[in-house]
């Protein structure tokens, strides 16, 4: 039985050039070992550090610019999608058909934006606008607009409805009711989610760097190809520091809200 299995498998293994012993070849073992050992001594020559600093700045800029553009789209979308702010629904439980259509349309748009992974957007934009940070910024802006709009609306809908509904029932406008009714409850959650998304955008821009969208990721890709473990190690440390910084910012902002 085993023999028959092996006999069937053998041509497949040959065809796919499955040669596990290459893993234990002295030459490749040595190279891998050196690459890993390099991780223990991060590169720190002044010109390299200067380059890392410049690229880090670019990564943060890509993430921030992308997130800002995403917010420009996500905030209006949130205000449209949030059902609780519907005035026509008040007392009848039914929305006006036109506003219901608009809501559904925007919701579909958000689904479309976030269902395409940012890496795919980045690949598309690298073809359209060429290599560099612009592609990364646009990719982050589109995907994150979809995510932020959806989650913002859900945060607002899951807060206590009473205050907002009473303000609407007493005749205040939709946006004022949002500002005075729902926002005090949801503000810290909204901020912490936004900062978390900023952190994700920093990580995302690193991945997109591998497809040529600029920033620290692109340098990391180059260093990995050249098997320079020390440089990769330095850049990974920078990423850890960036994420820790995002954590700190979130904490400070939330404490400021009390």
């Amino acid at each position, binding site marked *: 039985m085993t023999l028959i299995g092996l006999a069937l498998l053998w041509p497949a293994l040959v065809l796919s050039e499955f040669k596990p012993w290459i893993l234990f070849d002295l030459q490749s073992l040595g190279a891998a070992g050196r690459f890993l050992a390099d991780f223990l001594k991060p590169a720190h020559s002044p010109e390299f550090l200067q380059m890392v600093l410049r690229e880090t700045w670019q990564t943060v800029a890509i993430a921030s610019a992308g997130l800002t553009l995403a917010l420009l789209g996500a905030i209006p979308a949130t205000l449209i999608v949030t059902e609780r702010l519907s*005035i*026509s629904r*008040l*007392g*009848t*439980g039914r929305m*006006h058909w036109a506003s219901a259509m608009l809501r559904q349309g925007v919701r579909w748009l958000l689904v479309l934006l976030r269902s395409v992974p940012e890496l795919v957007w980045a690949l598309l934009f690298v073809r359209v606008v060429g290599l560099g940070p612009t592609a990364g910024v646009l990719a982050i802006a589109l995907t994150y607009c979809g995510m932020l709009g959806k989650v913002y609306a859900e945060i607002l809908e899951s807060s*206590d409805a*009473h*205050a907002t*509904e*009473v*303000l*609407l*029932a*007493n*005749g*205040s*406008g939709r*946006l*004022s*009711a949002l*500002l*005075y*009714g*729902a926002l*005090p*409850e949801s*503000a810290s959650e909204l901020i912490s989610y936004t900062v978390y998304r900023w952190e994700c955008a920093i990580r995302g821009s690193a991945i997109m760097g591998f497809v040529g969208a600029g920033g620290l990721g692109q340098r990391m890709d180059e260093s990995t190809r050249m098997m320079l473990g020390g440089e990769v190690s330095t850049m990974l440390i920078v990423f850890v520091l960036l994420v820790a910084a995002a954590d700190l910012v979130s904490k400070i902002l939330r404490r400021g*809200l*009390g």
Partner: protein
Amino acid sequence: MTTYRLDQLTVRHLGAAATPALHQVDLVVGQGEQLAVIGPSGAGKTTLLATLACAQRPESGIFSAFGHDPWALSDQARHKLRARLFLAPQTPPLPPRQRVVTAVLAARLPQWSLWRALASLVKPSDPGAAYDALVRFGLGDKLYARVDRLSGGERQRCGLARLLLSSAQVLLVDEPLSALDPALAQLTLSTLQREASARNATLICSLHQVDMARANFARIVGLRGGRIVFDAARENVSDAMIAALYQNEVNASPAPPRHETPERLAVGACF
């Protein structure tokens, strides 16, 4: 001039198909009139107030406010009408993390532009008016406190202080005394009544305390099982009528507690 005219009005909660919350109710209220609505729990007091505030659409019958049927108006016109009616629900609608001054000034939102509302979040635009309103309920020292630092009774009065800042001509107040001790209850009720007569506003107040209602209001409406049992001047309300209104309240099992019924409650409902 009449504020409200209700003729054979039936109101059903959204999603609750069984029995209507209000059943063929007739009521006429004149401008500047003050009346108390009493009745056992689940009688439909909250639904009546929500309907009067245009926060609950009636199913059948005639409903007119200021001579118009609000539900025949356009969405915008009806929303403008809502600014003339102030509904103070039993549970104070105050976000816990908001400052008292902001919560009270929210009464001005229907008049404010969005920019004014935004600016007032940063720097309260008329703290003096908020302070005066709070003082009248004995809460002057709480102006800059956060709502979640207030006790239940303080929150309830804070919600009523918002009423003083609105410019509404109809004040619909649901159980304003439920969290207050007798002395504060009297102060609160007379403040509400003074405010209503000062601006010639109609005051409709649902109450659990029958003796307070009879002592303070000239007109009493008794509600039970969604129907108006009596609607009479205070002198004509006898103890027997009150007893009949609340009779069998304890073992009235067929009427389920309406307060936790439907999936979608009207705005003013307490939950």
